[in-house]
């Protein structure tokens, strides 16, 4: 009987391990992608990319990671389970921000030199359209219903609202200076934009198409993660993550992390937030309940992880 219980527990452990989260972290300096097993808290693979990879977007089903290389001017399609690059698609200009449509395609790539978004079909491996937006589009995000694409236009101090069906910009929303990362909540009601130049986060009401609040954070915010009714914001120059309440917008705390924190995302179970520390070459795990760093996992050199980089394994 005792043995059976032990066996059952063992089975649970195995099952738990099999569907743990994995992170796909772009290492810009070492030119590769780190695959980190987040349950075990350790790296499990390194995938060569080239061209100074920066942006990443994992598909909703977790099967693909799309990686931008702004120097190499490519979009790499990565098979996440096989840990290999399936294709590299040439895109013009400076591909940086990237997002995948919730249905799995197309893939949107922000070109921050030519001020447009390239629409890429991952099946035909080609650019099928260009969408004109503001200056230096950076972070991209698609609403959960798949109808709307947002682009943080860094040098216009605006967020562009793009209609996915017509592939046309339908609105421009004024935000703070130098908006960079943009994150949409699970209901598709609000978007949160990190403003590098004004050290704050703009909160956008997507139905009203306007900024409804501006929340101060610390020096040079980069990107935002949303979980448990809180926003977690990386501050590149303060080496911290600012946490604020999504209802009152009151600041809760600042969590010290590694040097130059950049990409940030919540785990799929909502229990943790992972932060990529560009200078420190680590991924910090923040416990959402205690708001403390509980682990640092080594990455390659210069991890940026700009975008959505976590997948749940099948």
């Amino acid at each position, binding site marked *: 009987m005792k043995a059976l219980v032990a066996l059952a527990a063992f089975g649970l452990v195995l099952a738990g391990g099999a569907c743990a989260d994995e992170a796909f972290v772009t290492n*810009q*300096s070492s030119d590769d992608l780190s695959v980190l097993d987040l349950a075990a808290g350790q790296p499990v693979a390194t995938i060569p990319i080239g061209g*100074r990879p*920066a942006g990443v977007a994992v598909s909703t089903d977790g099967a693909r990671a799309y990686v931008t290389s*702004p*120097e190499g*001017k490519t979009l790499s399609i990565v098979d996440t389970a096989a840990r290999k690059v399936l294709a590299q698609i040439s895109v013009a*200009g*400076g591909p*940086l921000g990237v997002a995948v449509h919730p249905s799995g395609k197309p893939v949107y790539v922000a070109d*921050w*030199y030519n001020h447009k978004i390239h629409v890429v079909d991952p099946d035909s491996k080609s650019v099928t359209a260009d969408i004109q937006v503001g200056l*230096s589009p950076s972070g991209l995000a698609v609403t959960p219903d798949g109808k709307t694409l947002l682009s943080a236009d860094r*040098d216009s101090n605006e967020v562009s609202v793009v209609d996915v069906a017509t592939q046309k910009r339908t609105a421009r929303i004024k935000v703070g200076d*130098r908006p960079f990362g943009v994150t949409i909540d699970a209901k598709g009601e609000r978007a949160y934009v990190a403003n*590098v*130049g004004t050290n704050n986060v703009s909160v956008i009401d997507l139905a009203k198409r306007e900024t409804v609040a501006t929340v101060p954070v610390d*020096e040079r915010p980069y990107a935002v993660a949303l979980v448990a009714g809180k926003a977690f914001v990386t501050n590149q*120059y*303060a080496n911290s993550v600012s946490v604020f309440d999504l209802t009152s917008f009151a600041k809760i705390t600042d969590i010290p992390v590694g*040097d*130059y924190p950049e990409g940030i995302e919540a785990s799929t179970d909502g229990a943790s937030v992972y932060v990529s520390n*560009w*200078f420190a070459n680590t991924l910090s795990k923040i416990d959402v309940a205690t708001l403390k760093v509980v682990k640092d996992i080594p990455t390659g050199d*210069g991890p940026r992880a700009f975008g959505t980089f976590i997948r749940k394994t099948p």
Partner: protein
Amino acid sequence: MKFQLLAAAALAVGAAGAADAHGPTRQKTEQTIEINAAPDKVWAVVGNFQDMSWHPAIQKTEGSGGNDKGATRKLTLQGGGVIEEELNTFDAAKMMYSYRITNVDVKVLPVSNYSSKITVKDAGGKSQVVWDGAFYRGFPNNDPPPELSDEAAKKAVDGVYKAGLEALKKKIEGGS
């Protein structure tokens, strides 16, 4: 000639239109040196944002705000040229401060969006000085000319750090 004019025009736009415009790949570097002196003795030399006379390339430091966050300084270099900087954090207990360049001509230092940190650490009674830098190349767009490339930026910053740390070591060990 045409290219140079275009490059100059592009730089002018970069400087005027968007002070924060930069290339796509941030560079990092870290230089360290061991100094045969107690950390507080080394900190006494480097731990003042308003005095960079320990660096051989610096002819004059002028500034305001002391060592408070937001303090500024203007460094005049030996061969002419100026660099303006702002103090970001200052922690005397940890013997560390971080700062950023707010204004520099790429002909003086071929970087943009430069930030840096100096730390004095204890190394068994001796000191280890760590100088970290994070910056983008001087050219704000893709396909930079060689003198404003990622490599040129890193080489220039490494040169500044190495010269400074070696002079610091010589000054402190020579004086003790």
